[in-house]
């Protein structure tokens, strides 16, 4: 099989060599202390942790004390939605979470948990461009809520939201604002300084750190009821002995990604535009989803009249790594909840493709993709037509 052309960086990225180097002392007998220990090994670990926090804080424009390490983006999202809702409930405030219908499942399912626990989830509709209905948003804020959560960059379509503006509206209504910034950090300007964003989730493995590390940036104190309980680490918001190596890796990855962002993402956006233009020319019927050209690293397209399960199969056989539609647990490749919410998936007989790039993506990668992709789509279309024919 041919070498893999990797266009799935929004799913995960390889660990960067600089990140691996930064982490390696903490994965060896060199530095293995528990940050909570009072001896020298512990103090060294604590210092590494503090340094990681500072680097993240500097990169994102917040204070080091705002950085709560988690196991990843999903846990950060759960803390932000479920944690705030539970705290509000315990304090007799509105047991309600406002979230957009196009959020990541980590947010939507956490909001679902709020509902199952007796609270309320307010789901905000979006228009065909993926933007939330502002009237509904204002109405929801006026009713009060424990949190309003709108992602910075949609992980599937790359649609960006004006989270700075949305956060101000929320603050003015007295509702803490959270954003899932997993696909934003290092991709779009994501300085929290001076914004009304109270909470933000980030994830390591989307930007060159390993899987299993992320953080919740908590710029407003006392908003969150912990979801797990333990030894009091991280102010009790997220106890448990810290993943020191992971935290160090996250600090390195975030610092690098944010510093490199302006030049790297300009190049990535150029490659994306090239890819979009060439694919549109080569594949009849292919449509680019995000007309507003939000995030630089995600190209989301839809292809009509094509069997998603066969497309996924043939892409892999051709050595192309990307994401199609939304494969449910049983493998049905249907329209994702994001496309359904955007109303672009009516009478759906096609498939969506998310091609996501990284600073490591080269022109040669794009060329390799363009050499293989049209043939794959052609072949699967012929197969689809044969399989869908009357019998």
């Amino acid at each position, binding site marked *: 099989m041919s070498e893999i052309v990797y266009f799935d960086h929004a799913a995960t990225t390889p660990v960067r060599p600089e990140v691996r180097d930064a982490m390696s002392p903490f994965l060896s007998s060199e530095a293995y202390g528990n940050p909570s220990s009072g001896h020298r090994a512990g103090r060294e670990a604590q210092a590494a942790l503090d340094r990681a926090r500072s680097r993240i804080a500097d990169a994102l424009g917040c204070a080091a004390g705002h950085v709560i390490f988690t196991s990843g983006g999903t846990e950060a999202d759960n803390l932000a939605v479920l944690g705030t809702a539970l705290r509000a409930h315990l304090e007799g405030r509105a047991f309600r979470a406002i979230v957009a219908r196009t959020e990541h499942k980590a947010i939507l399912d956490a909001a679902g948990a709020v509902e199952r626990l007796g609270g309320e989830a307010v789901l905000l509709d979006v228009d065909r461009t993926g933007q939330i209905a502002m009237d509904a948003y204002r109405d929801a804020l006026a009713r009060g809520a424990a949190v309003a959560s709108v992602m910075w960059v949609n992980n599937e379509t790359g649609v960006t939201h004006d989270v700075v503006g949305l956060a101000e509206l929320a603050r003015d209504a007295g509702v803490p604002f959270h954003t899932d910034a997993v696909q934003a950090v290092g991709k779009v300007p994501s300085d929290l300084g001076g914004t009304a964003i109270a909470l933000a989730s980030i994830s390591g493995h989307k930007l060159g750190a390993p899987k299993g590390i992320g953080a919740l940036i908590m710029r407003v104190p006392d908003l969150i009821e912990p979801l797990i309980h333990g030894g009091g680490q991280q102010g009790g918001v997220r106890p448990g002995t810290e993943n020191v190596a992971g935290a160090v890796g996250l600090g390195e990855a975030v610092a690098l990604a944010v510093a490199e962002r302006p030049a790297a993402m300009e190049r990535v956006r150029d490659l994306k535009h090239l890819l979009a233009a060439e694919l549109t020319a080569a594949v009849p019927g292919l449509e680019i989803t995000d007309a507003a050209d939000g995030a630089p690293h995600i190209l989301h397209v839809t292809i009509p009249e094509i069997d998603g399960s066969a497309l996924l199969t043939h892409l892999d056989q051709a050595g192309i790594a990307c994401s199609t539609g939304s494969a449910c*647990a049983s493998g049905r490749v249907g329209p994702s909840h994001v496309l359904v919410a955007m109303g672009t998936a009516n009478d759906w007989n096609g498939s969506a493709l998310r091609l996501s790039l990284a600073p490591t993506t080269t022109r040669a990668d794009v060329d390799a993709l363009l050499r293989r992709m049209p043939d794959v789509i052609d072949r699967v279309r012929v*197969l689809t037509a044969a*399989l869908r024919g009357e019998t």
Partner: protein
Amino acid sequence: MSKGRVLVAMSGGVDSSVAAAMLVEQGYDVIGATMRLFCYGETVPDRPCCSVDSITDAASVAANLGVPHYVLDLEDRFKREVIDDFVAEYARGRTPIPCVRCNTFTKFRDLLAHARALECEFVATGHYARTVDGRIFRGVDRGKDQTYFLWGIDRSVVEHMLTPIGTLTKPETRDYARGLGLVTADKPESVEICFVPDGDYAAVLEQHLEPDDPALTAGPIRTETGTVIGSHDGYARYTVGQRRRLPGGSPEPLYVLRIVPEERAVVVGGEAELFGNQVTLEEVNWLVPPLQVGDQCDIQIRYRARPVPAQVTDRAATGRLHLELLEPAKAITPGQSGAVYRDDQLLGGGVIC
């Protein structure tokens, strides 16, 4: 040097897992595929052969064998050609076998189309059957033999079929799986129709038919002579040879002899009346040059039934095939298959009408 590329239908059960493993060992270039055939909604309880867990199991086995695994969505066609036909047949008072149509259309036509698009020369399954030089023979494990379900396959497809476990017994299959540490080695047998939860086929009919469909509404239970001895709540709930759900109080046990949908009637009688020696097949398909009038063969009229010697008595222009059984068979049931054999070789078959 690869022996060729093969798409293996992996249900997530032990049989198809071992089929895939054997083909890898034999030097084929294997691609695993799990067919998604119907909605795995939350309403369908976890089932041994068709659940999300099964897809995970198939993927895990493929990963262990170092071969790719994909899920292919064949739901629309499966519904149209297998489930809809299943429902329509019961509505006509017959007792269908959806597995036959699944093999004919879903596995050995639609999956084959996928295989060809993937440049696979072969499609493989975990059937207990042997395919040799374009011919199909019974599996070595007679208790598990599944050739009965394969008579409808297009003849030209057989040379592209691989059924490696046909040479094994079930215990050998399990041993093979255990030897490789496959997660599916000790999975329970699936004995039911995959889209019928808990064997409750009437529930599937109730889902697909109107509540007032004649097949699901009351009608008489009568004898051959017309004596009404009770009523039933829908003839689709009955099959020829059935004893359950019939009124008691007769001097001898009663069996369903036939179903008369025009009268919504279930006709019953004694066991002796269940035997017959004439079989007519429709939708006939041959895997060898067609038999002619006067030719001898064996016919099997139910899964696991003993094959009975028979002679072709007529080949109607309508494509029907009439056979006379040389010894009487019990409960010849419209909708079931008549699979035609000579010794161990499957020659063809048709639907009993």
